[in-house]
């Protein structure tokens, strides 16, 4: 199992000052790019390529991998503190992470997020290393039929993520699917719902969808209510920490100063300990996502949401997700980070990028003189292992840096609402523009942002919408390809049948679950909140 190569490359990485230095500066860069909406790892990689150009192959590749590994961790910071997702997967973190901040649990959310990202990234790297030999047959087993069924499985999560608003959630999900259909039809090349606008030919980008559903409504809501704490929500969690009780007592009259988010290290450790408590969830999510990430064609966004969906589905009380369940943060973050490790594999071995970030990496590898392909396994095993270790080490460096800086980072959560709103709106609009390059996206976000605000205002679940937007194109594209390649018979292959069974099982499970008495729900929620009080220093 290449143990000797694995160990020697690790030692080399840890004992070469130049490499350590580069990994250490790559991490803050990754965090910066990840935390700015729309910039994302892709652009970061492109901008770093000229810097990396003259370096020897190993050095350059390690630097880029290290930066890319922590982008999602960076994205979790604004997601949790301000409710602004940096990219598609980050929106899953917003759902419960931001809710936790509103309950006064920002520190715990951050700790859980950092811990989960690191562990997820590490597990993904381990999975990568272990599966090197069985990789090729595994990738080749998945065809468009399986992609379609995987996408369908993800779509069934819409029901799961609707909480108590099943009908609204379903409509939200269907709305997401309809938005996904905007663009050129893959089977005929005809324009659908584009109304002559060229910028819509490629559809509505995930950044626009996610920012208009989460960031904009949050900012508008902040402007209306004047505070990030919702006293009702805080009162419900009263007894958990002293300053939440104080918040509950404050009158509702904007523009009130929001409560200072005092984040102590104790809270952060508590969050990280949560990751240990939920270790099986972390393991399951990491494996699920790394496996999906390995298969090019499903995409990184889908993988991260599948992890979140699985988290919700496997919990005792799915309908409480979105109100601040720490498992939600853990599942989402493990998912986002593990997928990057997974998608490294097809990039290296087939020259087929497993995600859009990997597409850039591929270009960078070629530029550095690395030829992706089966020869990587035979001639450049040391480079492969070095990259795997780089992913792991970068995650460790990242968590150390973030935990150390956490109290200062958390101050972001207590910035006065009035200051935050205009900055975030400009940043969100900027992110959409940078990502898509067309000013018309700004008008689109105005329209969708308004709808997003109304969704938030009237309790329409927004997570199903994101699932629809992400999985819709994959589902349609795969379905058409499957039918073109093999007709209906394509779906009767072994793996397809397993997936069909999973889908039916998933739906059945949900129906069975929704019959449980409400009492169980109250008991489980109490159990979650009834953890030992952490004394604040």
């Amino acid at each position: 199992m290449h143990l000797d190569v694995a160990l020697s490359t690790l030692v080399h990485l840890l004992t070469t000052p130049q490499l350590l230095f580069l990994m250490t500066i790559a991490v803050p860069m990754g965090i910066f790019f990840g935390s700015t909406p729309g910039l994302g790892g892709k652009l970061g990689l492109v901008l770093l390529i000229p810097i990396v150009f003259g370096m020897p192959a190993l050095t350059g590749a390690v630097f880029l991998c290290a930066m890319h590994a922590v982008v999602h961790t960076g994205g979790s910071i604004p997601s949790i503190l301000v409710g602004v997702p940096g990219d598609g997967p980050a929106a899953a973190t917003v759902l419960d992470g931001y809710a936790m901040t509103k309950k006064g649990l920002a520190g715990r959310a951050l700790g859980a997020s950092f811990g989960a990202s690191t562990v997820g990234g590490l597990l993904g790297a381990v999975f990568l290393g272990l599966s090197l030999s069985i990789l090729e047959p595994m990738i080749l087993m998945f065809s468009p039929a399986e992609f379609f069924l995987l996408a369908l499985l993800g779509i069934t999560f819409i029901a799961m993520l609707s909480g108590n608003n099943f009908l609204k959630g379903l409509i939200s999900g269907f709305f997401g699917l309809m938005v996904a259909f905007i663009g050129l039809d893959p089977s005929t090349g005809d324009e659908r719902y584009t109304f002559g606008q060229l910028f819509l030919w490629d559809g509505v980008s995930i950044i626009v969808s996610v920012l208009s559903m989460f960031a904009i409504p949050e900012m508008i809501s902040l402007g209306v209510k004047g505070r990030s704490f919702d006293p009702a929500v805080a009162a419900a969690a009263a007894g958990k920490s002293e300053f939440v009780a104080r918040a509950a007592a404050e009158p509702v009259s904007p523009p009130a100063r929001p409560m200072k988010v005092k984040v102590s290290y104790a809270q952060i450790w508590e969050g990280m300990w949560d990751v240990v408590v939920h270790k099986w969830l972390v393991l399951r999510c990491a494996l699920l996502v790394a496996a999906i990430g390995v298969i090019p064609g499903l995409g990184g966004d889908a993988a991260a949401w599948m992890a979140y969906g699985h988290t919700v589905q496997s919990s005792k009380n799915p309908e409480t997700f979105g109100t601040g369940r720490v498992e939600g943060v853990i599942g989402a973050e493990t998912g986002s980070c593990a997928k990057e490790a997974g998608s490294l594999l097809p990039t290296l071995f087939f020259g087929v990028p497993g995600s859009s970030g990997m597409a850039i990496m591929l270009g960078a590898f070629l530029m550095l003189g690395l030829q992706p392909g089966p020869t990587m396994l035979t001639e450049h095993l040391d480079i492969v292992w070095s990259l795997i270790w780089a992913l792991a080490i970068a995650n460790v460096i990242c968590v150390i840096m973030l935990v150390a800086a956490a109290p200062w980072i958390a101050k972001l959560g207590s910035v006065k609402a009035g200051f935050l709103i205009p900055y975030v709106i400009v940043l969100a609009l900027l992110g959409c523009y940078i990502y898509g390059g067309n000013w018309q996206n700004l008008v689109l976000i105005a329209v969708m942002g308004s709808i997003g605000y109304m969704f938030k205002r009237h309790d329409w679940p927004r997570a199903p919408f994101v699932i629809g937007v992400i999985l819709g194109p994959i589902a349609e594209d795969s379905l058409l390809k499957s039918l073109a390649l093999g007709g209906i018979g394509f779906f009767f292959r072994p793996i397809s049948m397993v997936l069909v069974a999973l889908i039916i099982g998933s739906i059945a499970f949900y129906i069975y679950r929704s019959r449980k008495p409400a009492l169980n729900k109250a008991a489980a929620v109490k159990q979650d909140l009834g953890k030992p009080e952490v004394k604040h220093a």
Partner: protein
Amino acid sequence: MLKRLLAISAVALAATAPAHAADNNIFNGKTITYIVATAPGGGYDTYGRLTVRYMQKYLPGSRFVVKNVPGAGHIVGANTISAARPDGLTIGTFNTGLVYDQLLKRPGVRFDLNKMSWIGKASNDTRALVVSKKSPYKSFDEILNSKTPVKFAASGIGSAAYIETRILQDALHVPIQIVPGYDGNEAELAMLRNEVVAQIGTANSLEQFVNNGGGYFALTISETNDLPMVPKASQYAKDDRAKKLVALVSTLSHIGRLTVGPPGMPPAQLAALREALMASLKDPGFLAEAKKLDLPIVPASGAEVEALIKQILNQGTDTVAYLNHAAS
């Protein structure tokens, strides 16, 4: 005596001055935006970013900024370049395949390649057919003579690869079942999974796949000499329709990684840009970097590209009719 010496020196100096002295200081202190019609990363972006670094060197005092304007298969970027002010401060690159979009009068096209200011091109775009090693077909002839339709992967409907696949199907009567929707390298993966047999693409992009043993070059549609041992499509073109369409594809293949500006650029600016581009494409440093990036460089001047484009776009109506038939 001195006067005569001075006179002789003056004449000698004048004689050694370059014949077409474009004023390369014309962009001193100016910022030139180079528009790439794709998202960051990928072939066009890489070529573009490399090119501007060297053009900057040959236009002293200038600053180049790369702007990505993706969308609608390069059409948005091309529209943007075309609509820009023709003062030489906005130029860019897009897929040569947009020629098809103009010939087919695709909605959304707001550029006229005939009128744009051509600055030069960096490479060839040799179109070739790659067949999977896992398929039962060992040569193009076997595919041609197949009794059942052969599955070809293609990118989106309306893309250059799709149109060229249709040309093979329609004009060369190859029994093809096109499966569209494979973007980027997905088609190669599909070939490895034995879902499809073949795909048409740029020879340089597919080279690695072939070298790794995934497939072989079965046919080249271009008359360029990038793939000398591979049979040429022109051998199989029997009738007027086939000959004209293959000639169209072949001529287009000579223009890859183009650089162009909006219509109506003043001659001084255009000359300066053309000269700077050619100098860049021949610069030893540039060539070394390009080699390292595995980017083949086959330069041609703006004047040559302009002539080729005009030749392509002024095809007879019969060719356009053939193309319309193939693309429908």
